[in-house]
């Protein structure tokens, strides 16, 4: 199933012109920590924001 999920996410990422790695990294943030506490939720949001901002910076650097 993991393969199927990866394939589906990759396919949709490519169609939206978003790197597959970014999508997988975001998914990993939620898979690696399933806590729903408000602190953890904020931490996860922070990580995702950082991932997206890093991506934007690297994109603009190119």
């Amino acid at each position, binding site marked *: *199933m*993991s*393969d*199927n*999920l990866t394939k*589906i*996410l990759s*396919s*949709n*990422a490519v169609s*939206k*012109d*978003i790197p597959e790695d*970014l*999508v997988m990294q*975001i*998914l990993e*943030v*939620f*898979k690696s920590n399933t806590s729903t506490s408000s602190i953890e*939720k904020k931490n*996860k*949001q922070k990580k*995702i*924001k950082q991932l*997206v*901002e890093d*991506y*934007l910076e690297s994109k603009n650097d190119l």
Partner: protein
Amino acid sequence: MIFKKIEMKNWTAFKGDTLVEFSSGAKNVTLIRGRNQRGKTNFLRAIKWVLYEDTGDTLEEYNSSLKLLNREAMKEGNFSASVKLTVEKDQSTIEINRSFQARKSAKDPKESDFEKSFIVLMDGKAVPSPDKFINSFLAKEISEFFLFNGEDLQKYKQLGTSSKRSSELKNAIERVIQTPFLITAQTEIKQIKKLNYDLLEAQTPEGDLKDIRARIKTLNNLEIDFDNQKEELGANLKTAESDKEKADAAYRLVEENYEIASDLRTEERSTDGLEKAKTDAENDIKDATEISWKILAKKIIESHENKQHSEEKNKNHFHDSMRASLLKKSIDDGTCALRLIKLDQKEINFYKNQYNDLKNEDFQLNDLDAITKKSALTGITHDFKDLINPVIKYQSAVANKIDNEIKIDNLKKKLGKSKSKEIIDAYDEKENANKRVEELKKAIAKLDVELEGPNAKEGGENYGKIGIKNTKLALEGVEKEMSPDAKSRERELDKIYQSLNEIFSESISDLSNQVKDVILEEGNKIYQQMLKDETKNKLKINSDYGLELVDQDGKKIPDSSAGNQIIVMALFYGLKVATGIEGPIVVDTPLARIDDFNDLEFLNVLPTTATQCILLPTGKEIPVGGPAEQVLLPKVGKSYEIDKKSDQHSEILEI
């Protein structure tokens, strides 16, 4: 992944040690037959319990040690039970051991007296976090899709009925295919996107931006002011140091005479003071003398008026110049100077005679001896101490003045051609230059302290140079966020979040659809194989993963119990294929809900739905020598019979 064997000790009805080896490969069916109440369900419970410490029963008692421990063993004082399942996975041997036993001290143990143990070995080595390890390849939440009771098949038909059970099953399926992670990711991205959008849409009043920029400008100016002040002080210090060097050099030229010049200046400065002291002393003498004379004069007048003693007394009491001056004034005015009465000629003549006598007296105002002598001569008792002190002061002042003049004269002679003023000026210039340098150094040090701020090294203070720098950085950050460039960045981020949101949203839908497609395709295959349906009826899947039978026109076919069971098996199989679950299925009373018309096909197909098939039928379901057994036999590798020796003692015997 296959189950190799299970070893039970005092587990429920199975007293003592029980070993069951499972068949795999081409003959992947293990048949364990037993009549009702012999222990089939307890055998299934043993597998669930060893894996998850949960027999799967809703009744709590089926999960208590007291309930699971064989009663006969308990009566014999044996209070321990265990189940060990050996699994082969990816060429590794996994031994899952779970047991419980009462504390040695417990003679008649209660539930709380039992201690539990759970150990998993992989190729002989203990696995850390064994629960997590097992869930990684046999997740508990999907266990009901491969460890189940045929009697319960009906419940899966409830999928899509909006019941609580339906919701649980749907959630379980979605957990297997990891949909919740996608949903959580999408939800959080939507939230972040909203926050980002709020930031993007937030209006920045022009005034705010102007204010921020003005504050940054002020801080910039403040920094420049500080720097300028320091620079100016530095320049002033350089000049002062240069001046100091010159002044020092100039002074060194006259330094040897400075002491003399300094003394001279001191003497010259004291000259006026000494002169004044002398004058003051003279005035004091005059004042004291006048007072003394007045006192004397009064006494003289008193004496003069005393007729009885007039001749004698007047002769003795008249005194010097005071008397003379009083007499002169009285003679000139024709009036007694002291009594203010008109004098007659006789009196005037008398005054004249007295006056003439006194004219020849030699009297020096500052001559203490003469005063004393005169006082003694007059015979008038009078205290001259008020006069003595001023005279002493006067004499001292005169002496000091003379001494001063001598010193000045001597010092001037010592200095020769050197000009005292120039030497003193050089000294003063040197002192002032030094003082100026020190003052500037102090001012610079003070400014440095102000620049750094009192606690600047601790960081973060909003004053001093570091404070200014930090505040400026913070303001510049705000300005950046407010600037049109920042908005452009937010817009770009918004687009990315939008794309991510769509990716996860579409992936949830795609994943669900893909799983449904596989379930439907594989389910229909199994359904056709099991039911041998000649009609063109087929399965249709609903939004909650529930399967239902429809005719070729898509019209729903009324439910039938047997059909429902086959539909559910089709769902299981489809789900296994769709989710990639690998492993055995263990089915208790597999034909419980399958009617006689379909049982043979069902049994024929069932072993193909899993890598390993462990069936726990009753003798009625699959009678020895019957057609059902005939269908299964080619695939059966191991066959067992559960024999009951007593109510609490069943044995599993290999046939």
